[in-house]
């Protein structure tokens, strides 16, 4: 029922309000000195030589894709979990087919080295 979910909204609102209040309190109480050096980007005392936003490795993207696919799988596992007891073996095998398909994709990424984040020198070729 929708009204069972309202407490979640209430908690969200309260948590947000609490966070804002704490930040505002701290802003009121803290001293502000500023200055060019203290507002500088931190780089262990070295001067900044280049941009901080670098392009990241494509391997993170492969991991995220795997995550998305497995998350969708999990989304279908939940309803399955509800009715498995009544559904019996046919339902069990129906889901095994689905999970099996997903696992084939997982095995493919695994085999292609999409899950290996080892440094380049230790890595098998990703091209294969």
């Amino acid at each position, binding site marked *: *029922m*929708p*009204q069972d*979910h*309202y407490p979640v*909204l209430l908690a969200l609102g309260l948590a947000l309000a609490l966070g804002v209040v704490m930040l505002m309190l701290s802003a009121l109480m803290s001293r502000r000195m500023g200055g060019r050096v203290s507002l500088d980007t931190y780089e262990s005392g070295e001067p900044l030589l280049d941009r901080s*936003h*670098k*392009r*990241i*490795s*494509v*391997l*993170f*993207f*492969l991991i*995220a*894709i*795997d*995550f*998305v*696919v497995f*998350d*969708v*799988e*999990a*989304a*279908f596992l*939940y*309803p*399955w979990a*509800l*009715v498995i007891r009544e*559904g019996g073996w046919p*339902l069990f095998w*129906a*889901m095994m*087919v*689905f*999970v099996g*398909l*997903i696992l*084939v*994709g*997982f095995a*493919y*990424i695994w085999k*292609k080295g*999409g899950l290996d984040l080892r440094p*380049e020198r230790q890595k098998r070729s*990703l*091209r294969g």
Partner: protein
Amino acid sequence: MEMAVFLLFAALALVSSLVVVLHRNPIYAVMSLVVTFVSIAVMFVLLGAPFLAAVQVLVYTGAILVLFLFVIMLLNVSGDSSRGFDLHKALAAVVAAGFALLLLTLFWGRYHGLDLSPLQESDVALKPLARALLDTYLLPFEIVGLLLLAAVTAATVLARRSQDTSS
């Protein structure tokens, strides 16, 4: 209460979706889309589909939009190349407004004044939904599995070659 929640989140959805299409920084676009999707999840709850709401937050905001964020950081995309307001954008705005108005008149003419009766406990039970998915729609469900397999393979093949050029 229901009306208040609807109005609050409808407003939130409209404002945040406008930020999605108008803000130049794609990171902001993704963050506002998170707000839009959560608001739509609230709509799902109000419409008596709490499971869809949970899946919406879990899959859409928890996974798909994270994928977008990764790609934005992967490619280090900054703002949009087009600036200011030109003829192209004016045309786009006209087309979009026209389409929205068309839909609005269609929906409003056909459905205005149809009130929904309040939800019953049995209307939101999750087991019938699970049974429908795994019984009536078993074949489409397995095909979705196949589609996901195809997607994961295709995406890996497309993205993989990067090791030659970057990193």
